[in-house]
């Protein structure tokens, strides 16, 4: 379970995340939607202790991320796709992460196999395609076999087979009672996969509802665009 309480982040005078209160429950896939620059990545960075909230809190099973003693065993995260050193091999990238949390080397080979990178494990990541980087990032998230997953646009750069694979992976995770928070811009994919939908715009919460209740039989894209449009009108109306 991930709990955001009045979570706020300002940079200079600009409010990027504005008073978000959301609970992400286990046992379902929660899609995290919003336009570019809405504050999704910043929210995820605050959940993972990379950015400090200006106000409010983000906790995982009641603990701040920083206080988790062996964090990779609690939370698996994918933030930016290209987050390995180009001169290091895929396996060595996962190896140093595993070592930092006391995870066995055998687990590194297991996850490489699981994400389909076993054949290129000893290749340096500088030559990897976006899809391969994405798979490596997902492998890193799976290392500690965590009960919580936080993934920022995991579908980016994946081919059709890859998209299907990640869909099955996330469904499997949720079915095992784990917590899955995943941001995405691929709304038709979200409509096929998600159980719960959280929408933010300009850092503010626009919707937090079960997918079926939110769309009511309509395409998610239509509902989503309507939500975003209303929020823009509301804000500009308020300014005027």
């Amino acid at each position: 379970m991930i709990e955001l309480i009045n979570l706020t982040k300002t940079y200079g005078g600009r409010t990027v995340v504005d008073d978000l209160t959301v609970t992400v429950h286990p046992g379902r896939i929660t899609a995290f939607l919003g336009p570019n620059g809405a504050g999704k990545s910043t929210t995820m960075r605050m959940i993972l202790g990379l950015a400090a909230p200006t106000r409010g809190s983000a906790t995982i099973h009641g603990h701040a991320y920083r206080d988790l003693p062996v964090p990779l065993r609690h939370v698996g995260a994918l933030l930016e796709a290209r987050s390995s050193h180009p001169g290091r091999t895929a396996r060595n990238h996962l190896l140093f992460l595993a070592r930092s949390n006391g995870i066995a080397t055998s687990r590194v080979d297991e996850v490489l196999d699981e994400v389909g990178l076993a054949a290129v494990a000893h290749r340096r990541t500088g030559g990897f395609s976006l899809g391969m980087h994405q798979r490596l990032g997902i492998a890193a998230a799976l290392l500690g076999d965590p009960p919580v997953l936080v993934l920022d646009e995991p579908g980016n750069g994946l081919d059709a087979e890859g998209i299907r694979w990640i869909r099955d992976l996330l469904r499997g995770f949720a079915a095992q009672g784990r917590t899955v928070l995943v941001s995405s811009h691929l709304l038709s994919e979200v409509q096929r996969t998600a159980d719960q939908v959280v929408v933010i715009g300009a850092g503010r919460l626009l919707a937090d509802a079960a997918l079926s209740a939110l769309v009511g039989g309509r395409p998610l894209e239509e509902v989503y665009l309507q939500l975003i449009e209303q929020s823009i009108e509301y804000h500009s109306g308020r300014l005027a």
Partner: protein
Amino acid sequence: MNIIISEWTKFRTLRSSWWTLGTVALLPVAVAVLVAVTGSLASNDTVLAGAIGNTVVALVPAAILGVLLAAGEHTGATMGPTIVAVPRRWPVLAAKAVVAGGSVLAVALAGNLVAFVVAASLLPDHETGEAAPLVAVAIVYAGTAVLGVAVGTALRSSAGAVTAVTGVLLLPALLGPIVGRLRWLADLGPFGAVQQVVLEPGRWLTAAGVAVACLLSVVPAGWLLLRRDV
């Protein structure tokens, strides 16, 4: 301990680490041989002072090694995953200091010892001097590598940090001679510390002081690391 092993894994799995470490090892030998074969040693100089005193140039790659270990995480985009894995952050900096300082200590000790032995055998007419100050020299090298880690952590850019740390190393030696009464300033940096301890082996305390000052540079770097968003 896990985090030290993790940082060592990062270090040993990049080629640049080995190139830099190799330079720290070989440069002192090359410089000592150069001093010996060019006959540039004054007749009353000891081998220690003449040959080892000039190996200070290898302090630059020692500092760069530290910089690469720290700022390389930003250049290589691994800072996010690293801090997600170790959210308390400061153990990462401490482990980097141990890995950079430890590897440079071992390699600088070996490199300067070989340089000393080779120079002594090439210069049979000169008094050799004691070998003990070589330990103090290696400690200054290790301190310099840790200084590189601190500067790399603070500046978060390999290019910027290499420039800054090279400046910190070279400026006292370059400016010292031209500032007259303030000449003693030149002795404050790692360059000056190495030269003092080989000229006057009794001054190992100065060298130790400079090394400790370098170690302490991780404190402000750690403060920045804890305070800033990644």
